[in-house]
């Protein structure tokens, strides 16, 4: 699972609705893998609007990934270093094993072989 997808996921337990707590999911016991892919400027520009950048920098810092500025540059297209680093963090960093815990309700989503288990129990629907 790429960090991009982690940035899009929030806890979906029915009673867990506080937006301050159900996103981002807290990563624990994470194993990372770097998979090289081709950089696509169009895609990155499209994604910049969708990604929650604050959450991304926080998560990156927790995982020990450095090199992302605290805020998105005003003209990201003119900053190739930023674009490359964003591509590396967002699209090339894969989580292979680990857990994602919700800070609101405490539900733990496990990640196995890069596939997060997002199933809920009956009482959480």
């Amino acid at each position, binding site marked *: 699972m790429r960090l*991009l997808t982690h940035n899009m996921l929030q806890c979906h337990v029915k009673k867990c609705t506080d937006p301050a707590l159900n996103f981002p999911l807290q990563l624990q016991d994470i194993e990372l893998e770097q998979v090289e892919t081709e950089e696509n400027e169009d895609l990155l520009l499209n994604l910049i609007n969708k990604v929650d950048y604050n959450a991304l920098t926080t998560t990156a810092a927790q995982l020990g990934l450095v090199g992302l500025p605290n805020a998105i540059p005003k003209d990201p297209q003119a900053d190739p270093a930023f674009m490359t680093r964003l591509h590396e963090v967002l699209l090339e960093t894969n989580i292979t094993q680990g857990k994602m815990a919700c800070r609101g309700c405490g539900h733990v989503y496990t990640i196995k072989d*890069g596939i997060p288990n997002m199933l809920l129990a009956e009482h959480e629907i």
Partner: protein
Amino acid sequence: MACGAVHFPNSLAEMALRALELLCLPEDQSSLLLDIGCGSGLSGEVLEDEGHTWVGLDISPSMLDVALEREVEGDLMLHDIGQGMAFRPGVFDGAISISVLQWLCNADSKVQVPKARLTRFFSTLYSALARGSRAVFQMYPENDNQLDLIMTCATRCGFTGGLVIDYPNSKKAKKFYLCLFAGQAANGPRQELPQGLGVDDPQGAASGVKYSASDRRLQMMQQRSKGGKGKTRTPIKSKDWILRRKELAKLRGEKTASDSKFTGRKRRPQF
């Protein structure tokens, strides 16, 4: 979840391509798409080939393992869509789903109420999609009621749109695509329902059926004006039916009452 279609990979890829076409994405844009019920990732590969990034959901771990072995590019997720989807609002540029939606109408256990599951699915999908984007579901509806239920739930959750039927006059090639619009982008083009393929004759031209409450009411009114339900209906357990059942029972060696002119007649009220 897409287990009904795995045996025909070619046609599955074709359906995925058609679904992508119906999404009407802006040209030359690399989009982030959702593949609901991705199975082994065949439909996702079509999205990859067209230059899009995708995230796939499926309820079956074994299908996801197959997808993992095939080393698809998209991210995979074990997800029961009836429980709702765990995405932040407005992140996806579109969603496709091939041969999945009809399974959501099944209730595998007591706690699963199809209507509640559909509603939760559509409401979370609506929020996960960017405004002005679309979701296209290729599906095999069992009957009109099922289609109606799905459409009602989707409309309640804010979707507009309708059904596009490809090749409505062919038994084999006929395909249903439910085309849903998640609102209207601020400066985007007006959402219009695309035409189905293979629609030539005027009869088939009505195949891009738009569903609305007033249409359904009209249908019901027409039915009523035909003479109501009671008059046209024939009794299910008619004399013919009873005789046929008796014949069968005799073949099985069971004891039956002998046939007479009174067989299958209604009894007089007792009081």
